[in-house]
């Protein structure tokens, strides 16, 4: 079985972003970029399925600028076999990303496709579900366990009330939650080897997708700042403040 994994280049999760002074967008100049953490979990899961002999090939795909090849090389170093870069400098909304990925799915015919549940820049949480709908495939979002058996995927999902387990026919779309696995770090020899693994470059146009957007970004503002509070010196003082000053007790 072939597994396709979608990875997105985003701001490193440790960085606290700033809004541009003209409020047109966030400022990403000289900001450290990385693979979206949920995509790391997706790559890890695919690689583990290959190590267990369930998957035969892991293919990583990204849509984005030239620099996004860094994240594909990371995926290759973590164990993906080859990579597909759909190159575009245009901002890619979730629906456009899903359309491109649907074309890749059509061409590659994977048995399973794993995506992150959410990109930590847009916080959209959409592409996996959109891709499933466009490709006419079943989906299991927010996965914390994936078992492939008898041509089916049994997936445990983290839902508001607890955990839900569903069974999907294959091919299927899975999106990862935090508890699915703990991604490994790439080792130096693997990083060297990754440089020689195949990476092909295509474009949305070559795949027959036009990158459009139904959403116009009008303004980006910093959130309301909280007033700095005070330190209390004892539990007594805390309870007193909560009762008599904040009046929440």
């Amino acid at each position, binding site marked *: 079985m072939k597994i396709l994994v979608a990875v997105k280049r985003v*701001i490193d999760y440790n960085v*606290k*972003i700033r809004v541009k002074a003209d409020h047109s967008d*966030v400022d990403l100049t000289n900001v450290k970029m990385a693979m979206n953490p949920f995509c790391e979990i997706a790559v890890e899961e695919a690689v583990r399925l290959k190590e267990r002999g369930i998957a035969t090939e892991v293919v990583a795909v990204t849509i984005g600028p030239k620099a996004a090849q860094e994240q594909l090389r990371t995926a290759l170093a973590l164990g993906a076999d080859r990579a597909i870069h759909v190159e575009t400098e245009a901002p890619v909304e*979730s*629906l456009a990303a899903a359309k491109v990925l649907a074309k890749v799915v059509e061409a590659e015919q994977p048995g399973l496709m794993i995506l992150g*549940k*959410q990109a*930590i820049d*847009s*916080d959209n*949480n*959409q592409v*996996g*579900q*959109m891709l*499933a*709908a*466009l490709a006419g*495939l*079943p*989906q299991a979002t*927010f996965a914390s366990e994936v078992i492939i058996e008898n041509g089916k995927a*049994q997936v445990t999902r*983290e839902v*508001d*009330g*607890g*955990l*839900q*387990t*569903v*069974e999907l*026919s294959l091919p*299927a779309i899975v999106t990862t*939650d*935090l*508890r699915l696995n703990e991604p490994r770090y790439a080792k130096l020899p693997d990083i060297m080897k990754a440089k020689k693994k195949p990476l092909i470059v295509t474009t949305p146009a070559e795949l027959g997708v036009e990158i459009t*957007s*139904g*959403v*116009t*970004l*009008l*303004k*980006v*503002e*910093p*959130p309301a700042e*909280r007033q*700095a*509070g*005070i330190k209390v010196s*004892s*539990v*007594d003082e805390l*309870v007193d403040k*909560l009762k008599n000053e904040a009046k*929440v*007790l």
Partner: protein
Amino acid sequence: MSILILADHQDGQLSSATAQVVAAAQQVQASTGGEIHVLVAGEGVAAVAEAAARLDGVAKVRVADHAVYAHQLAEPLGALIHKLASDYTHVLAAASTTGKNVLPRVAALKDVSQLSEIISVESADTFKRPIYAGNAIATVKSDDALKVITVRGTAFDAAAVSSQGQGSASIEAVDFVADNAQSIFIKEELAQSDRPELGAAKVVVSGGRGMGNGENFRLLDGIADKLGAAIGASRAAVDAGFVPNDMQVGQTGKIVAPDLYIAVGISGAIQHLAGMKDSKVIVAINKDEEAPIFQIADYGLVADLFQALPELEQRLG
């Protein structure tokens, strides 16, 4: 043209988030003038439909009661909403795991974008939503004919429930049955708790890695009992197996905005703050005075939680 809301429900109960989505819809309605309809999909959901009909502002409840919608699997639910959507200008759902699971499918099937977790309605087509873990607020305008939107419940005051015990909204059956050969429900392990829902609680007490282990979370129980609070957790506490996943508060967990949030043994990473920094009053108890949580706490207590918690429980009387 009207607005359709997907009702959020669990165990035969309409979730509190639905009333908050209705409130958001009323703000949209102020400029579009259409009716607000609520779709209740599930199996054996008559009581949920009645609860939805009692929400102020709702004109009609449409009920798809069929085994195929039990457990609200994304494939049949998406097909159902897609089928109904052509009658509407807006399709709204709570940004719950159900809403997040299904609405993007509807948007893709309709070939439109989806807006996630709006926190304000500026007009019928313009909304605000947090991005980058809430470190920026984007104002976005949807150019699509159909707007598909998930709503962050805590950002809206819930629509009132009509007092007569009888709603004014009509209830009408939807007979469309989606076929679904692709996914089946296997099982559910739902957390059982007498405490309020995290998203709806007036007080939330959360523990982090500093709690040390799952046993120690009991130190929060007595305090939560006295305050009628829900108990939450940081990702680190969930990852370490102290408590189950449904307790995680944060960017990628639950969003809370109670009157009082007490963070115990939590450092205050941006991903955690994203889930709780709209709380009215924030208290932090942490033994490290440099912990970033103190930068947003109204009241900070630098103390060992193993001493402070029993004392706090006692003082709460």
